[in-house]
C-alpha cells in the first residue's frame, strides 16, 4: 500500500476516521447485544467463505444480506457493526490491514446510513406478519438503496484515486449489475430477520445455504474454466512442437484477436469465443506433414493443396464442440481474402464471417512479426504499415484499423492464456520488444523489402 498517492491516503484516513466516529456513536445505542453478536458471527463466517472472482454478476455478497438483516433486527446501530465485522475480521485472504480497515469503515458507514433510513421511515418490523406487507416493501427498498448507494460512492472514491479509469466508466461498469439483484436480496434480509425473531437463529442460517451453494458453484465453475483454458493451451503447445517457428503463435493470435474484438466493442461472450477461435485456428495443420510445413522454397501443387486443406481439417476436428459453433466459421475461413482470392471457398468482402476477418488480421500480424525459416521477423511498425497497405485487398479495413489502434494504445506483448479482463493501461508503449524468438542478439529485425502481399501463417 506504499504505492498510494497522497490524495488516496488522505481519503482512506478520512473514511476510516468517519467509520470510527459512526461506530463510537452507535455502540451505546445497541439493542439486543446478544442477537447482534450472533449476527456478527454469521457475517464473519460468511466473509471467510471463498471469495468468488466476481465477473459473475450474481455472486452477491452474503455479508450484505446479513448486514441488512441486522438493521431489521437490531436497528440502526446493529447495521453498523454487522456490516463492518465481516470485513474487519476477514483474515484468510491476506489482505493488508489498510484495505481491511478501509473496507470495515466504509461498510460501517453504509450500514449506518441504511439504519438511519430505516429508523427515519419508522420501520421497526418486529414480529413481521402478513398484515405488515405492502407497507414494508418501500422500507426495504429504501434501506437497500441507502446501503448500496453509500457503499458504491465510497468505493468509487478510492477507485478513482488509485485506478486510471475515469469515475464515470467505473460507475457505469459497476452499477447496473451490482445493484439490481440487491433489491431482491433486501427482501431476503427481511425474511432472515423475521425468521431469526420467530423461529430462532438456526432457521435464519438455513436461508444462507442456497446462497453459499451458489457461491461455491460459481467458484467451481471458474476453476473449471481456468482448467479448461490451461488444458487447451497445453494441447495447442504440443501441436506447435511440430514446427518450432510457430511456437506460441496460436496464443498470440488469440491475444491479437481479443485486442481487435475489444476495440470493436464486441460482447464479452463473443470475445471469449474469438479467443478460443484464435487459439485453435491452426489445429488442422496437424494433418499437414511436418516436412511440408518446414519446407524452404516453393511448394509443389500437392504440397500446397495439403497446406490449404488445414482450415477444413480444423473444422472437421472441432465440429463437435457445441459452444465453438460461431468460432468454427472463423477457423474455417481464416485464409479468405477480401478480394476473394483466398481459400477454402474464395469468399469476398463482407461475405467472410466476422470472426474470420478478425483472425486473418491477428494471424497475419503475428506471422509478420515472428521469425520464419525463410525470413526474419519484421518490426511492429512495418508490420502495421503492411496491414494498412493490404487493407481492403486482403483484410477488412475496419479490423485493420481496430488492430492498429489497439496496438498504439496497448502495445504488443506476449499474450498469455490469461487475458486481462479490462484493457489495463499497464502495457508498454507500442515500440516494446516483440515476442519473436529472435534471441540471437540482433537488436532490430531487418525489414524485408519485398512484400507484395502479406503472407499469412502457412
Amino acid at each position, binding site marked *: 500500500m506504499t504505492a498510494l498517492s497522497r490524495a488516496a491516503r488522505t481519503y482512506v484516513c478520512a473514511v476510516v476516521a468517519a467509520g470510527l466516529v459512526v461506530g463510537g456513536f452507535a455502540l451505546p445505542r445497541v439493542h439486543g447485544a446478544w442477537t447482534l453478536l450472533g449476527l456478527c458471527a454469521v457475517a464473519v463466517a460468511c466473509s471467510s467463505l471463498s471469495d468468488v472472482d466476481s465477473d459473475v454478476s450474481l455472486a452477491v455478497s452474503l455479508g450484505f444480506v446479513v448486514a441488512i438483516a441486522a438493521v431489521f433486527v437490531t436497528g440502526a446501530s446493529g447495521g453498523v457493526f454487522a456490516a463492518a465485522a465481516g470485513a474487519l475480521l476477514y483474515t484468510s485472504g491476506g489482505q493488508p490491514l489498510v484495505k481491511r480497515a478501509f473496507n470495515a469503515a466504509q461498510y460501517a458507514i453504509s450500514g449506518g446510513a441504511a439504519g438511519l433510513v430505516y429508523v427515519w421511515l419508522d420501520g421497526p418490523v418486529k414480529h413481521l406478519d402478513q398484515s405488515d406487507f405492502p407497507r414494508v416493501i418501500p422500507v426495504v427498498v429504501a434501506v437497500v438503496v441507502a446501503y448500496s448507494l453509500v457503499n458504491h460512492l465510497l468505493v468509487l472514491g478510492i477507485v478513482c484515486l488509485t485506478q486510471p479509469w475515469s469515475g464515470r466508466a467505473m460507475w457505469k461498469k459497476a452499477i447496473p449489475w451490482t445493484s439490481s439483484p440487491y433489491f431482491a*436480496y433486501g427482501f431476503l434480509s427481511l425474511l432472515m430477520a423475521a425468521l431469526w425473531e420467530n423461529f430462532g437463529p438456526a432457521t435464519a442460517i438455513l436461508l444462507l445455504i*442456497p446462497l453459499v451453494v451458489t457461491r461455491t458453484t460459481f467458484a467451481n465453475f471458474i476453476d473449471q474454466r481456468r482448467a479448461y483454458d490451461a488444458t487447451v493451451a497445453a494441447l495447442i503447445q504440443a501441436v506447435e512442437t511440430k514446427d518450432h517457428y510457430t511456437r506460441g503463435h496460436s496464443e498470440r493470435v488469440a491475444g491479437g484477436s481479443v485486442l481487435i474484438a475489444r476495440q470493436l466493442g464486441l460482447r464479452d461472450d463473443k470475445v471469449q469465443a474469438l479467443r478460443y477461435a484464435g487459439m485453435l485456428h491452426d489445429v488442422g495443420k496437424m494433418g499437414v506433414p511436418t516436412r511440408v510445413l518446414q519446407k524452404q522454397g516453393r511448394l509443389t501443387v500437392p504440397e500446397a493443396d495439403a497446406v490449404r486443406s488445414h482450415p477444413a481439417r480444423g473444422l472437421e476436428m472441432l465440429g463437435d464442440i457445441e459452444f465453438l459453433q460461431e468460432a468454427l466459421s472463423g477457423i474455417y475461413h481464416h485464409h479468405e481474402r477480401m478480394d476473394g482470392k483466398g481459400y477454402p471457398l474464395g469468399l469476398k468482402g463482407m461475405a467472410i464471417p466476422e470472426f474470420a476477418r478478425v483472425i486473418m488480421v491477428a494471424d497475419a500480424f503475428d506471422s509478420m512479426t515472428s521469425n520464419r525459416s525463410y525470413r526474419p521477423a519484421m518490426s511492429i511498425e512495418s508490420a502495421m504499415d503492411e496491414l494498412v497497405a493490404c487493407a481492403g485487398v486482403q483484410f477488412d479495413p475496419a479490423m485493420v484499423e481496430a488492430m492498429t489502434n489497439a496496438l498504439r494504445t496497448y502495445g504488443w506483448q506476449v499474450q498469455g492464456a490469461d487475458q486481462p479482463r479490462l484493457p489495463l493501461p499497464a502495457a508498454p508503449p507500442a515500440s516494446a520488444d516483440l515476442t519473436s524468438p529472435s534471441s540471437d542478439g540482433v537488436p532490430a529485425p531487418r525489414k524485408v523489402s519485398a512484400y507484395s502481399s502479406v503472407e499469412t501463417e502457412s
Partner: protein
Amino acid sequence: MIARVREHPVVWAGFGLAAAGLVIMLVRGAGPDQLAVGCAFGALIFVGELARITLPGDREVSPISLAAAIGYGLLFAMGTTDVSPPVLLVVAVQGLAVSAAALLHRLAGRSSNIDVLGRQLLAVAAGAAAFHWLIARANLGPHPAKSGALVPLMVAAVAVTGALDLMIASADRAIHSGTPLRAAVRDEAQAIASLGSAVAATGMLIALASNLMGWYALPVLILPLLTTQFSFRRYAQIRSTYRQTIRALSKITEVGGYVQDGHSIRVSGLAVATGREVGLTETELLDLEYAALMHDIGQLSLAEPIPRGSTLTVPPAERKRIAAMGAEIIRSSGTLGTVAVIVERQSDPYRRNRRPADDTLPVASRIIKAASAYDDLVSVAPEDARCRADALERLRLGMAYEYDPRVVEALARVVSRTVSSGLPVTALPPLRRPI
C-alpha cells in the same frame, strides 16, 4: 420400443388428466384457500419443471419445482389462514404440474425422464407423510404455525425425502449403467449433495416463511434458488465443453498420422466401460476417460510416426519414454495432475518378474494399457470374431505379468456384452450424456 411408448405425449396427457381428476376430487369441499394455495404451488412446480437443467452425469434436475413441492408438502399456514394440504393432494398437484410440464417438453421435442419424475413424486410424498405423522404426535401448543418446534420436524421430513430420493436414484443408476451399487450411492450423493441441500433448505423455508409473510414468501425464496440453478447450469456447460474439447483434440494424433483413425475414441469407450465394470467412481471414470483420450499424445514428440501407430511393437524403454512425454504435455496445463499420472504409468507392467504386484500402479493405467493393446490387436479385422478371440487370448497370456487379471476379465466381459448386443465398442457411450 418401451422407451418410445413411455415418452409418448399421450402418456403424459393421461397422467395429467388422472392427477387433475384427483385434485378436483380432493379440493372440492376443501374451501377456497386450499384451492388457491394448490394452484399457486402447482404453477410454481410447473414453471420450475419447464426450466429444468441437466447436471454432469446426465442428471436431469429441476430445483425450483422440487423445492416448491417440498414446501407444499410441509405447508402449515399461508399467512393467517391455516392450510395444511393432505399428502394425497400434494401428490396430485405435483403429478398434475409435472405431467403438464412433461407434455409441453414433449411437444417441443424434448423427452422427460419418467423415472426421475416418479422418484421425486414418491420422495416428496414420503416426506410430507412423515411430516404429518410427526406433527400428529408432537405437542406444538396453541399456535403450531408459529412454533419453533416445527423446524426439527421439518428437517426430519426433508431427510426422509432426501434419503428416499438418493436410494432410488442410486438403484436406478446401478441397474442402468452397470455401476456397482455402492459406487452408485457414492456418486449420487456426491453429485447431488450441494444442490440438494439448497433445494431442501428452500423447501423448508417456503413452508416456514409462508407462515410469516404469506404469499410474498414464494417470490422472495425462489429468487436465490434461481441464481443457484443458474450457477449450476454454467458449471454443467463448462464441464460438457471441456469434455467435448478433449474428445476433439484427442484426434490430433490421428490427424497427424501417429495412430489409427478412431483409436483414441475407441480406447476411451472401452476403457470407461471396463472401469465401470471394476467399480470406479464417476470422478475416477472421468479421469480415466481423459487419460484414455490423450494416452497417445506423447507420440507427438516423435519425429516420425510409429508404423500403424501401435505401441505394442515398440521396445518397453521407448514406450515408457513416449508415455512420459505425454504426461509432460498434460502436466504443462497445470491441472489434470491425476490424468498425467495415469498417462505416465500406462506402459508399466502389472507385475515385474519375481516381484509382487505394484500397488501404486493406478487402476486406470492398467485399464488403458489393456484397452489400448486390445484395440491395436483387433485393428487387423475388427469385425472378425476369431480376431477378437485371439486378441483376448493374447491379453490373457500376458495376464499376471503384463496385464492385471481383474482388468482383463472385466474387459473380456465388456467385449462379449457389446458383441452380443451387436454394437461396435465405439457405440458404447462412455456415460449417457456429456458429463
